[in-house]
Structure formats: C-alpha cells, structure tokens
C-alpha cells in the first residue's frame, strides 16, 4: 500500500502526460482541419464568395423616366403627370393574402371595385411587381397605414407619377390612354427599358409615340441590407425623361366640334390643308380616358362596351361609311383628267338612269330629274344621273384609279395606330373576296359613293384637303413637333406628301369653283351655311344605310332611327386660300346639307373667326 503510494504518482504522471500529448495532437489536428477549411473559403474560393457578397450587398434599382407631356397647338396641356400615392401589394411577399386584405380594409377604405381591379391587375402583372389595391391615397390614409405598416409585409405605399388627361373625353380618341403593362405587352417591349415603368400607351397617340414619350430608364446602384432596405446610393445613371409632343390639334376647336355634333353619333375631322396637320379629330360619343389609367372598374367597362352608341369606337379613323355624294368632285376631276367629259358638256337627267340594254332604273335623289346638267350643276345640285353616266363611261378601273389618287382605299398614315383604310372596290377586289365578276351596275353606284365603297371621315378630310390645295395630298398627322433630346427647342416632324398628277390647273379651279357654288350658289345643296365673312367650298353627301326597293320612296320618319341615312359634308375655307378642310359625318343624321353642313360651318367659323383675330395681332397665319 505504502509502496503503491510512492510508485503510483510517477506512473500516473506518465500516463496522464502521455494522454495530454495525445490531446495536444488532437487539438493541432482539429485546428489544421479548421484552417484548411478557412483556406478553402477565404483563399481558394474567395472570388466566388466575394461575388456572392457583392450580390447580396448591391442592388440595381431602375429609375423610371418621367413620361413626356402632350400639348395642343397653343401650348395647352392635354396629357399631364401628377404625383399620387397608391397602396401596392407584392403578392409573392405576402403569406396570407386574404388576411392581409382583411387587415388593410380595417385601416383604409377598400371597396369592391378596388378589390375587383386588384384581382384583375393581379392576373396581368409581372412577377414581383406591386399591384395597387388602392390608388390616390390621402395623406391621412398614408399616415394611418404607416403606423401599422409593420403588420403588412409585402405591402407598401408607392409614390409615382400617373397620367392624367385634364380634358378627359375631348382627347380620348386622339391621345388614347396609358394603362398598366400587361403580359401581352411584356412580350412586345424590352423589359429592361421598362424596369420600373408601370404604364404604357395602350392606344392613340400614347401608343403611337410610346418610344418618344416613355424616355429611357436610368439606374442606381444601392447598398441594401438583409431586409432589402436601401441604405446608400453607390452610383447613379439618371433616366432620360420622355420627350414632350406638341400637336397640330387645337383643343378649343376640338371642343367646338364636339359641341357642334352634340349628342349625335358622328365624327368631325378638320385638317390644315397647307400642312396636313389635324386641327380637330372628334368622334362622338366619347369617354373619359382617366379611369383606364389605373384600371377601370369592370362594371364601368362593361357599360361602355355594351352601349349601343359605342363610345369607345373611334369613328373618325375607324368608322367606315359609304362616302355618298361627297366623292362627286373627286370623280368629276378624274373624269376631266381622263378626257371622258369636258367641263361644260351637258347630259340629260330625267331623274333616273338605265344601262344600255337593261331595264333596271338607277334613281336620282330628285324624282323629277335635274334636266340639262353640266359638271358644275351636277356638283352643285348633286345630280346622280350625271355621275352614273360619268362612272359608266369611266368604267370601274379608271374610277378606282382616280379615287385612289385621293387616298381612298388605303390608310392615310395618320400617326395613330388604329386607323382603318376604308374600301375602294375594284374588279380584282371583288373577284378575290366575293369570287364574282364585277357587274356594270355596280360601277354606277360606285360613282356616287355607294355600294361597296367605304371611306373613313379621316380619308374624306384628307381628300378634301388635297382638293383645297389643288393637288397636294398630305398624310394627316397629329404631332407637329417633338422636344429635342436633352435640349431646349422642338424638332418638327416632317410631312409625308405627294402631288396628285391628275388634271390641269384649270380643271382643279373649275371643280373648286363648283364646290364653292354648293355653299355660295342660290341652288347649292349647302347654301344654308353661307356667310358674308368668307367663302366656303363644300360638298354634301347622304349615304344609304338601308337599300330601298325599286319603287319605294325613302321616308325618314318611317324608318327606324338606326336605318336612316348618314349625313355627310366635306368642306374647306376660305375657298380662295383654304386654311381648314373639314369632313363631317352624322350617323343616321339624314340629309348632309341640312344636318352635317351646319356642323362643318360651326367648326370652320370657330377656327377662322379665332384665327383672324390672331392674324390681326400678327399671329400664326404667316401670310
């Protein structure tokens, strides 16, 4: 026992010391393993982790450009941006959407319309894009949300500039409107250009000049923390704001034209024949484009769609009507040019016309007939029989060619995206679409602007402007100039024009003179709009919506309102030095001279009256 005591300590000491050495070895080994791991992370794979760290830290945030403004000819603002706050939800970041919505509804008014719009926009949105549940938050509502914001991850108040159209329905068919970008548009646009942009031009000028109005996106690099909050800006490339667009459109004239049409369905297009600029482009009824910007309520949209008056339908550029007698001056000029008739050569009008060897009677609007008719009288009194004969002698091919010169049958190329081209029939067209040969009788009604022939009010206005300028056909355009990038001043937009080869100067003058007699002459079909201040040249038209039998008489009061004739009128003034050309159509209005001509007169009067006032003080007339 005693011996054990004395021998044990040294043996025990050796045992424990050995073990301590082993432990030291384990420690060194473990440390070596740790250092190897740190070497791997910090030296061998440093570049990889440095990138990850940088990706964590730095976020590229798009800076959306401010959308360009749109001004009318006199500098009146037509499309504005105003700052607004909306409550946006990023659906991907919300755990329980229903609960979030219910919670939000407790502090902020959210009605059913808001909810429905949210649901609809949600289906169309881009991933990780905020969808507004409420727009136009008041300061009070923003404050109330701010208090409770922590309860709603994924919900935030977003401040942005939103499009506003101060003149509402007066500019709807011209400017169109912008709206939130949807999935279809996403496939069309460059996504990086629209990073941060929520709105895009849906139609009208907003769509046509989208590239100019939108501008170019800018970026800033921000340092963010783990919760995604931006802490500081590392670098910044400012956005290039959208360019302002200045129009030919005279908004006061536009309003005047709308007032002239009143509650009737129809369209008015007024052009400056010298520039091709659109002074007014009205389609009635119209609609307020502003609700469309943030997403219109489904019920309101349905109401617009279901309305029999089709307020969303842009009659001025998409409405295709038989132009009726308004084409007679153009047919007449074509006939003179092609030598089919001379200006003073007379034809007999008994009130009806039959093709040789046929018994079918093509009736004149005047039952008793016009008697002996030369071209001037045929235009002034709008003799159908004279033009039946002219059309017959020209034949469908030459008739088509003469009218195509004036731009019928093809889109005018106005700077809108939704324009239609009307229909200028031809033998080929009929064979291709109907599989039938062209009948000679069809040429006759073609010659008086009926039958297959369809034209838009814009086409009629453009053709009338070409008549006013005696042979200069200019593609109508709304935009006059665009703001120069990064600088002061405007860049004018060049006109696209061509000279109508038809005819000698004398023929033009004679047809214009005849058109002047339509208004100024004692027997003119539009004589009621005559005035003393200046002379108007014009042509009335009444186009059939409903074909009557051979022996029946047209009685407006017997027909349903929607089957009544369309009233048309084309005009320019002053007749000697035209500054405005107008085309008016009043759907189911009846007689062109009685219904459409006064509308045109009101527009012309408003424009020339005001212009003369400006001209006296040395204004914009330039002459």
């Amino acid at each position, binding site marked *: 026992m005693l011996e*054990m005591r004395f021998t*044990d*300590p040294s*043996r*025990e*000491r050796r*045992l*424990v*010391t050995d*073990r*301590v*050495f*082993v*432990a*030291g070895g384990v*420690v*060194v080994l*473990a*440390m070596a*393993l*740790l*250092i190897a*791991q*740190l*070497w791997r*992370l*910090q*030296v061998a*794979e*440093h570049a*990889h*982790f*440095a990138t*990850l*760290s*940088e990706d*964590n*830290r730095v976020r590229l945030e798009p800076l959306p450009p401010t959308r360009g403004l749109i001004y009318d000819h006199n500098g009146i603002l037509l499309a504005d941006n105003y700052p607004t706050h909306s409550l946006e939800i990023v659906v991907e970041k919300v755990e329980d959407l229903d609960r979030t919505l219910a919670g939000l509804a407790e502090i902020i008014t959210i009605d059913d319309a808001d909810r429905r719009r949210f649901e609809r926009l949600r289906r169309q949105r881009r991933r990780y894009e905020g969808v507004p549940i409420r727009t136009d938050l008041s300061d009070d509502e923003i404050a109330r949300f701010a208090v409770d914001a922590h309860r709603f991850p994924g919900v935030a108040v977003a401040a942005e500039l939103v499009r506003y159209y101060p003149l509402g329905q007066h500019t709807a068919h011209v400017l169109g409107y912008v709206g939130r970008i949807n999935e279809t548009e996403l496939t069309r646009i460059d996504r990086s250009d629209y990073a941060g942009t929520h709105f895009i031009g849906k139609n009208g000028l907003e769509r046509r000049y989208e590239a100019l109005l939108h501008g170019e996106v800018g970026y800033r690099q921000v*340092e*963010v*923390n*783990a*919760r995604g909050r931006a*802490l500081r800006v590392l670098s910044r490339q400012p956005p290039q704001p959208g360019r302002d667009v200045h129009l030919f459109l005279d908004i006061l004239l536009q309003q005047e034209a709308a007032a002239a049409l009143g509650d009737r369905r129809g369209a008015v297009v007024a052009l400056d024949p010298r520039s091709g600029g659109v002074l007014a482009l009205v389609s009635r009824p119209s609609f307020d484009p502003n609700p469309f910007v943030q997403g219109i309520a489904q019920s309101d949209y349905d109401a617009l769609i279901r309305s029999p008056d089709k307020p969303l339908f842009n009659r001025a550029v998409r409405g295709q009507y038989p132009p009726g007698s308004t084409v007679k001056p153009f047919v007449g000029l074509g006939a003179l040019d092609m030598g089919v008739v001379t200006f003073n050569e007379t034809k007999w009008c008994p009130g009806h016309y039959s093709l040789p060897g046929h018994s079918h009677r093509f009736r004149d609007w005047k039952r008793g007939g016009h008697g002996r008719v030369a071209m001037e009288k045929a235009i002034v009194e709008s003799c159908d029989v004279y033009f039946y004969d002219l059309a017959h002698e020209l034949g469908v091919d030459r008739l088509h060619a003469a009218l195509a010169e004036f731009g019928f049958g093809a889109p005018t190329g106005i700077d809108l995206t939704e324009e239609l081209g009307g229909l200028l029939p031809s033998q080929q067209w009929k064979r291709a679409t109907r599989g039938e040969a062209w009948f000679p009788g069809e040429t006759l009604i073609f010659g008086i602007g009926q039958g297959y022939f369809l034209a838009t009010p814009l086409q009629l206005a453009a053709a009338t402007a070409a008549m006013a300028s005696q042979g200069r056909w200019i593609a109508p355009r709304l935009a006059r100039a665009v703001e120069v990038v990064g600088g002061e001043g405007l860049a004018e937009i060049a006109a696209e024009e061509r000279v109508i080869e038809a005819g000698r100067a004398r023929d033009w003058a004679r047809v214009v003179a005849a058109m002047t007699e339509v208004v100024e002459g004692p027997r003119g079909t539009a004589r009621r709009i005559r005035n003393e201040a200046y002379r108007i040249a014009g042509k009335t038209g009444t186009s059939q919506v409903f074909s009557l039998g051979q022996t029946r008489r047209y009685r407006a009061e017997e027909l349903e309102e929607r089957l009544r004739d369309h009233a048309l009128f084309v005009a320019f003034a002053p007749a000697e030095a035209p500054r405005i050309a107008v085309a008016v159509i009043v759907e189911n209005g009846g007689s062109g001279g009685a219904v459409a001509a006064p509308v045109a007169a009101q527009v012309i009067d408003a424009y020339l009256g005001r212009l003369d006032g400006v001209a006296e003080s040395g204004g914009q007339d330039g002459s």
Partner: protein
Amino acid sequence: MAASLVAAPRDQFGGRWRGPFLRRLHVDWPLLAGLVLLCGIGLLVLFSAVDQDIGRLRDQLWRLAAGFALMLLAAQVPLQLARRWSPWLFAAGVLMLILVLLVGDTGKGAQRWLDLGVVRFQPSELLKLAMPMMLAWLFARRPLPPGLLRLGVAALLVVVPVVLIARQPDLGTAVLVASAGVVVIFFAGLSWRLILVLGGAALALAPSLWFTMREYQRQRVLTFLNPENDPLGAGYHIIQSQIAIGSGGLYGKGWLNGTQSHLEFLPERSTDFIFAVLAEEFGFIGILVVLTLYLLIIGRGLYIAAQARETYDRLLAGGVTMIFFVYLFVNTGMVSGLLPVVGVPLPLISYGGTSLVTIMTGFGLLMAIHTRRKRPRV
C-alpha cells in the same frame, strides 16, 4: 492521504505569506497575458459586430472585467477545498438540472433557467466545471488506470446530466458537458482497446441517435448536410456565414467594413457567429493570428496539466483546457460549415456573460493548479 490534504494549505498560507503581494498572488502570467490579448482583440471585433454600439461594448467590458476578477479569485482557492467540494458541487448541479426540468423558466423555447429570486441561473453552465471536477475526484481516489467498475460509474456520471441537459433541450451545452466528461475519462487512462471498442459502438449507434433528436435538431443536421436545400430558411445562417468568411479573403475587408455583418446578412453576428465577422473584416491572416492565440492558451493549459502535482489537478486541468478547446472548435467549425449549427459561443469573444463565467473560473482553476505545482517543502 488525509494528512497531505490538511498539510498542503497550511504550507501554502504559512510558508509564503511574507513575500511581496504579486508573488503571494496565485497567477499564471503567460496564461493571463494570452487571455488579455485575446479579449482585447475580441473587444475590437465585437465593437464592429455590435455596429459600434458603445453601450453594448461597455456591457461586455464590464463582464470581462468581472470574468477576470472571478478568475483571479478562483486562482486563490485552495485546490484541496475544490477537490473536497467536487462531489457536492456535482450533486447540486444535477439536482438543479432536475429542478429546471420541473419548474424552470422557458427562454427561446427551451427550459434552461432556474430563477433563484436574485439571479436567473443556468445549472447546465455549472456542470461544465462540475463534471471534470467530479470525474477528476473520482479517478484521483484510487491509482490509475481505472478499472471497469470505476469506468462504469464515470460513464453513468456523464450520461445522467448530459441527458438532463439534452432534454431541456440544449444541444450545445450537452455536447460540451459530455465532452468534458469524456476528456477526463480519456486523460484518466481509458485503455486504447476500450476506446476503439467504444468508438466503434458509437459509430454503430449514431443512426439511432437520429430518432431521439427533436425535430429542430434533425433539421439542423439536414441543413448542415445540404444548406442550399433551404437557402432562406434553416440554411440561411450557414450560407451567409460562409459568404462572410469567404468574401473576407486573405486580408479581410478591413475593420468596421464588413458588408455581410453590417448590412445584417449575417445572423447572430455579435454572439454565435462573431467568428464570421472576424473572418470577413480581418481575413485569413487575422484568423491565423487569433487562432494562434487560442492555441497558445490551450497549449499553456495542457502544459499546466502535464506539470500538475497531483492526479486530481492534472485531470481537472486537462478537462478544463479541453472544454475550452471544444468550445472553440464547435463554434468555429459551425461558423465555417464544418459542423452542424449548434448554439455555442466563441469563447472570450462572443457577446454575453454566461459562458464567460464558466470559462474564466476554469482558467482560475488552471492558475490555482499551476501555482501550486511544486511539491510542498516539508
């Protein structure tokens, strides 16, 4: 044996009482120097990790000061006293662990705290020291190496508190307490053959451990095996921590310039994950410096164990030193992705005071052992 127990303190207090104060004080200067240096660097890193919050830095400074005071106090404790108290301390610790499970306070989903009225107390912390003390006491009673019976008793003494702690559940502390016990058994001379047998058995039984784990513990293991599985959930800690370390590179991003930590990508950056802050801001070089300091401290501890006078002293010194090492390795291994996420702080550097108390008391015991290594002059 009893005589020597009584004789030693008389000798200590009687023989040297008249020397200068510093020579009378039981302090191991190399160990103290290493600890002060490491804590100094630790405060530097912490200052960055708490976003230069002077208030929190001051808190930690006070804790460290208290820790050093505690260490010096413990260094003065006569070891015979500690040795005699060992079983009672251990028994008290186990009793309190049982109490915790019955009436303990819950914090962060685990029952760890015992409210003593004045202070809230974690009995499991006590076990980190009581465990090596108890086993050292057990093994020092008879000559080494221990027989199978003693080993069996020792194993039981390890398993009971470890299971109690794991039930709280507190995996980190359970690992530390278990390793403290295992280390002392190893130092006591567990035969290599038995080590092989037990190691093999442990490997074989490892899969069955899976079924005793709680759901969140299983999740941690799964996440450790493949953090990319759940990059925003459980894997987030590991991924962000590795990014922080890796992006630090050789020289680091510079003090206070760590983006992973300051932009809050790194979770628990002032506590369990402070090692990643160190790695990000001071790079591989900085880490080598700090690890070298740790190694010096551990080396000094092992040296003290080897030099110690008695078996109890040696086993205790070895156990205390190795707990410190396990602390270090479990934490750094977890932060660098070598080990699963286990809530263990980086000793002496992480913000917080609980582990500091145990660690500093342990170093105090080391100093007490070393300054009394000489054989008593009779």
